């Protein structure tokens, strides 16, 4: 047992204390700088946190790659969704004339915008790639209102930390941190490749977040809620995805 000398033991003890303090300080700093995702607990929490934190530091202000017009995919694919409910069918039959996007939560002026009002807002277009977590992808041109513009319209308060968005289809919701919500390429998309967004691709309104995977691009968006406490929503994991075993952050 001579190899475990007193000096070794003291050295190991000091290293352990230094390591634990270092981790605690790193955790506190990371939380202050918004580098901890809502689903940071559990078995895969360390990996989720490292990925989210690293990508926030690396790509916070980066723009998603934009492509030339000739790169647009001839036949974009959309994974099928569950059959729509009766309310959606009535909206569809009416050409979505009565569709609204409600904006509430930590905003000075809660609003409800009709599809026509949304389409009359200043818009932005980008030709970007949609990547599915399954591995496939396509390139299309999306046109919509920057989410930042809608947040400005409603007067999002400075204490806002996340924007939660709900599909009209029950149980389908997600959220973005403010970096992603205010990112210039994050759109409430109403048009795809120059046509009204098809229902198969989430029409009439779809969240379009080109720096994250397809599943963050929730279809049939009907409501936005600005919040300073993402843990108040459902199971507190930031979106429906972690409740099915998928990551809240989908930049990878």
């Amino acid at each position, binding site marked *: 047992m001579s190899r475990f000398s007193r000096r070794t033991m003291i050295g190991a003890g000091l290293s352990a204390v230094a390591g634990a303090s270092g981790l605690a300080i790193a955790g506190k700093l990371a939380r202050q700088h918004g580098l901890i995702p809502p689903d940071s607990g559990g078995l895969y929490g360390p990996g989720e946190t490292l990925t989210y934190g690293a990508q926030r530091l690396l790509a916070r202000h980066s723009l998603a790659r934009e492509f030339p017009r000739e790169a647009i995919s001839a036949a974009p*694919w959309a994974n099928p969704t569950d059959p729509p409910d009766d309310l959606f069918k009535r909206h569809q039959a009416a050409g979505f004339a009565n569709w609204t996007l409600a904006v509430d939560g930590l905003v000075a002026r809660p609003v409800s915008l009709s599809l026509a009002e949304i389409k009359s807002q200043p818009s932005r277009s980008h030709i970007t*790639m949609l990547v599915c977590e399954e591995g496939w992808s396509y390139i299309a041109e999306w046109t919509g209102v920057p989410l930042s513009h809608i947040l400005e319209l409603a007067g999002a308060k400075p204490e806002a930390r996340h924007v939660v968005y709900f599909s009209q289809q029950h149980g389908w919701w997600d959220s973005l941190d403010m970096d992603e919500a205010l990112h210039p390429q994050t759109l409430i998309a109403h048009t795809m490749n120059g046509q009204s967004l098809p229902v198969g691709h989430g029409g009439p309104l779809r969240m379009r977040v080109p720096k994250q995977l397809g599943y963050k691009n929730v279809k049939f968006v009907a409501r936005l809620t600005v919040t300073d406490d993402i843990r108040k929503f459902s199971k507190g994991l930031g979106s429906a995805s972690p409740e099915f075993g998928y990551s809240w952050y989908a930049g990878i």
Partner: protein
Amino acid sequence: MADSFWDKGVDSPPTAGVLRHSVAVRISHWLNLLCFLALLVSGVEILISHPRFYWGEAGNVNTKPLFQIPIPSSRAIVPTGYGYVLPDQNGWSRALHFQGAWMLLFLSAAYLGYSFFSGHLKRDLAPRAADLAPGVVMDSIRKHARFDLEEEKRATSYNVLQRLSYLKVLFVLFPLMIWSGLAMSPAFAAAVPAAVAALGGHQSARTIHFFVTISLLLFVLVHVLMVYLTGFRRRLRAMTIGGGSAIEEQA
């Protein structure tokens, strides 16, 4: 024994060198295996949700694939020709894949740091100048091809092919794996678009990621086969508890 990786063993009499890799090499070897298995299993699970491969930027079921792996898929949308759909395991598989990748990244950094500063890299992994002579390399290839491994059973340092294989894994396949993996991430692609372009696009990166996996898998199979053929017990002990003198083992 001066140029070999076997350490002398702290507790052993000075005459009988204990066959044992350094603690750092032994720990990183088994952690590496753990990460590799986690990444392989989760990677296969992710792959079966879309067992089609493309070249270029975009690819989906409406695109002609470069090739398709003839297995059923975990998603009904993929036209595999099989009448059934495998269970969807992507949620935990993706989480495990990225956590395993982070672990492997830290482990590789620690291992490379150790190897550089301890001299392991220069002494045990870098081929000796004399070994790189065409005649020596050809001789080693010939012996391996004939399964003439008597020398290897007594070897106390890596042969030239072994060194080149380890260097290829460390400095070619691992970096390419990390690069092609990151190139598939939409946020990383936004930050470093050249990393995607240099590989030929998003789908090309995915296809390259697959072929590097196959290369690593072949490496592991050959590695295990060679350990088996050149003294499984001795080599396993050297990579775990150590023990057993060279003389005793060779008897």
